[in-house]
């Protein structure tokens, strides 16, 4: 980057200065909303960072990968074995598996935005409250989990 590029304004391009919703909301959204909950919250963060067009395909791919992994584990019989070990049926334990994959999705997306979280931390910037994206993420995530639950039990 040349000196002229360095001295080109960066912040005038934003309607609002870039910021992040707090990470507690992100974790809670992933915990209760599963992979889709994590994806929705991460989408809100990407939007506030002004990176939605760049990050959305990656976020969508991570969420899709979580569901594909769940399906593949189910096809291979691993979910039934795990459910048996945990006690109870697959239907009864699917919520736990979705939650675990929600947290894995959270981890993967957190890694994607890790530089921003750490920059906010070291510069002492307070994150924004995440109630609105959090509630939206949990509602959409729970709906997706219920749909997945119904579909997997109906078709397999």
């Amino acid at each position: 980057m040349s000196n002229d590029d360095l001295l080109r304004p960066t912040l005038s391009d934003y309607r609002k200065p870039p910021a992040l919703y707090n990470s507690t909301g992100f974790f809670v959204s992933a915990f209760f909303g599963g992979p889709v909950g994590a994806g929705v919250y991460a989408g809100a963060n990407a939007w506030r960072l002004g990176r939605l067009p760049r990050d959305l395909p990656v976020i969508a791919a991570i969420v899709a990968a979580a569901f594909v992994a769940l399906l593949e584990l189910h096809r291979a019989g691993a979910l039934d074995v795990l459910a048996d070990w945990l006690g109870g049926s697959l239907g009864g334990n699917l919520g736990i598996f979705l939650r675990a994959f929600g947290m894995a999705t959270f981890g993967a997306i957190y890694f994607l935005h890790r530089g921003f979280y750490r920059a906010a931390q070291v510069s002492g910037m307070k994150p924004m409250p995440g109630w609105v994206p959090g509630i939206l993420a949990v509602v959409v995530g729970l709906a997706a989990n219920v749909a997945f639950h119904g579909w997997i039990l109906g078709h397999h």
Partner: protein
Amino acid sequence: MTDQTSNAAIYAEQAFYFIERRRLDDARRVLKEGLHHFPQDPDLLFHSAQVDWLADHNDAAEATARQVLVMSPHHAPARQLLVSLLTERGEFADAELLLIELLREYPESADLYGRYSRLMLRTLHLDKAEQLAREGLRYDPEDSQCLLAAALCETARSGARPNEGLAKLLKAHPESLSGVHALVVALVDAGRIDEAHRLAQGALRADPANEHLVSLVRELRIQNHWSMKPLWPLQKWGWGASAALWVIGMVLIRGLSKSAPDVAMPVALGWLAYCVYSWVWPPLIRKIL
């Protein structure tokens, strides 16, 4: 006119002496007297704005800084103060434009590059923050603002790994508050709360009037309190530890309920109590201490 200017300069010099030593009441007294004789002097007005800024009277500081700029539009210290005030108010885009303007006039000012880098870091533009700090260090390899910005960028990038930027900052400015700040941030980031607390306490003893240090020591005292020790894994590894806690809890409790049902219930209750404690206690202790 020359006499007037030199007299005003004497008042300004005295005020600066007191400001540097954070003797704000003395500075105010000198400035009041100076401004009585020279009400339009830009330097006296600037110092007056500076005193207001240091005393957290930001609105008054901004009004005075703008008054200086009406009389003397190129007054660089007043423009720099305005950058700080705008940043504090969250008007980052305006602060950036002002900094760029200053950098175009003083293209070799490492200090300005350092300040711009900190602004970029604060608005989460890590790449640009790093490049600006690097550019500033080309002009002055020991500039404290640039070294601080570079150290913070490196902490943001590499976390607990050895931090070359921080080592350079501490070597060049072992006495500076910036170095302490960067070191404390790096230690907290690495989960070394005890060391961070001791370091910040030492800095506070050297500069007891520094409000930033007071709040830093207070926060670290809370994090280092004996009742927070059980939460150490969560402090160190953050959400990763929370996820691991959940997974381990699930696996352990379900496993125990099959292999040793008598132990499963106490373990489940202990696990639940720990989870509740980790949620409830940190906000509570902040209110108590």
